[in-house]
């Protein structure tokens, strides 16, 4: 069938049930927006987790005696699995760091006569250290090194964040399932009712020898257009919300092109699948 004529037929399907088309598009938009928001949150948490994990350091505090033979303890720590780099921080360097960290409150240190801070090993973790079990294992091995008094890492914070990412991913899955089913159902209903109202046209088309594809195309076009409209509306609303939120809260930048592509392709897929389901049942 000629493309121009096909588009006109598709538009005829849409315009005959304009209100339903708009309502269906809005529902699809709401579903896609919900899904996108959850995906963005999960994505942001994952990025944050990666950043923290990459910056993750382990502090191993050592006795003054061990600090005296720093080359030996650094060499032992370097040989542990998962350690990328070991830096030895002397008592004086630790105090200097503390002074910097205290900033305007540096006067507090004047009350102390001697340097109470211990020397320490700062271990940067390598990419080979992928699980928290390995991290815990490394901490355990560090504690067993002679002269190490205490070990500290950001393991707990990372674990909490990872748990949050896992929860968010699970919620994403549930939201995804609900929105996919809802969107497809909405398109299904809209196309199904459109098919009912075009029953006579369909009968005549079949009677005169139109191919099944020719009969179905205008309805597929309707469903797909509905989905794409939903995707576009979802994207626009999301951008408005993002701009408003960003003006008051410092939130990370969202990938515009990817979000646009995601929303529109989700809408297109929902529209296409929904209309195919409706047509399989009715035509």
């Amino acid at each position: 069938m000629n493309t121009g004529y096909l588009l006109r037929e598709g538009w005829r399907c849409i315009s005959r049930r304009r209100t339903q088309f708009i309502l269906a598009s809005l529902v699809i938009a709401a579903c896609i927006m919900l899904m996108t928001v959850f995906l963005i949150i999960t994505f942001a948490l994952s990025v944050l987790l990666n950043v923290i994990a990459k910056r993750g350091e382990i502090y191993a505090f050592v006795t003054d005696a061990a600090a005296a033979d720093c080359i030996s303890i650094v060499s032992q720590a370097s040989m542990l699995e998962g350690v990328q780099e070991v830096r030895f921080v002397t008592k004086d360097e630790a105090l200097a760091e503390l002074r910097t960290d205290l900033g305007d409150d540096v006067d507090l240190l004047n009350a102390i006569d001697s340097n109470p801070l211990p020397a320490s090993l700062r271990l940067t973790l390598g990419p080979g250290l992928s699980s928290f079990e390995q991290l815990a294992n490394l901490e355990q091995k560090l504690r067993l090194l002679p002269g190490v008094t205490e070990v500290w890492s950001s393991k707990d914070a990372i674990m909490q964040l990872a748990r949050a990412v896992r929860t968010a991913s699970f919620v994403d899955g549930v939201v995804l399932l609900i929105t996919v089913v809802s969107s497809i159902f909405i398109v299904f209903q809209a196309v199904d009712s459109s098919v009912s109202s075009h029953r006579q046209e369909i009968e005549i088309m079949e009677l005169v020898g139109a191919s099944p594809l020719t009969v179905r195309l205008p309805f597929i076009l309707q469903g797909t257009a509905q989905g794409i409209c939903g995707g576009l509306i979802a994207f626009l609303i999301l951008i408005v919300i993002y701009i408003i939120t960003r003006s008051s809260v410092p939130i990370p930048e969202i990938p515009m092109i990817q979000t646009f592509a995601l929303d529109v392709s989700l809408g297109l897929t929902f529209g296409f699948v929904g209309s195919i389901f409706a047509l399989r049942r009715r035509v």
Partner: protein
Amino acid sequence: MPQREKHPLQSTHSDLITDISPYAVVLTEVSKFYGDSWPALTDVSLTVQKGDFVFLLGATGAGKTTLLRLLYRHELPDSGEIRVLGEDVVTMPQKRIPQLRRRIGVIFQDFRLLPDRTIYENLEFVLRAVGLQSDTIAPRIQETLGRLGLLHKRDCFPHQLSGGEQQKASIARALVKSPDLILADEPTGNIDPQASGDILNILKDINYEGATVLMATHDAKLAEATGRRRIVLDAGRVVRDDLS
């Protein structure tokens, strides 16, 4: 008999079928039941030669419409064989049905025109649906409407036409794709006698140009007046056939 102009559609499908049979329609012991007990057709056997004009007579419920519906494969029989334009319509695969239907023009008593489209658009719809190229559509519609005297009504909607004109438009829709076989189901049932005469004359002209016409009607007088072959159905059985 004048040679019918070959339609572009025909070259795409009818040439694929080697139809050397002299018959447009062959039914062999065809039976069709609705439900378990109501026989719509029982052991119906008949043939219609290519180029024939045949009346299918019978009272309401005699099985005329069922027979026509079997011919354009709207329904399948419970038993028997049916060949239409050389095709075995009972065993033919689903994907070949559109090709068969492109060679058949169906006319209904209730016209079945699309109410929200003009007469021109009703015809255009058919030609687009069967995949005709844009440049051939307008001349073909003009020619068909002109032939049926409907050119001046081309931009009217069905409700703006009289019953006779609507039936003419319905015939135009069947004719516009130059079918080999016309199946007319009570085409004069909803129109006045004057318009009925016009419709019959149009169908005779179409037949004269080479198309086979099978017209179902309960109007025995109309059929008798034409002197054409009549097949009479009663309770789903052929009770009379002028051929035999």
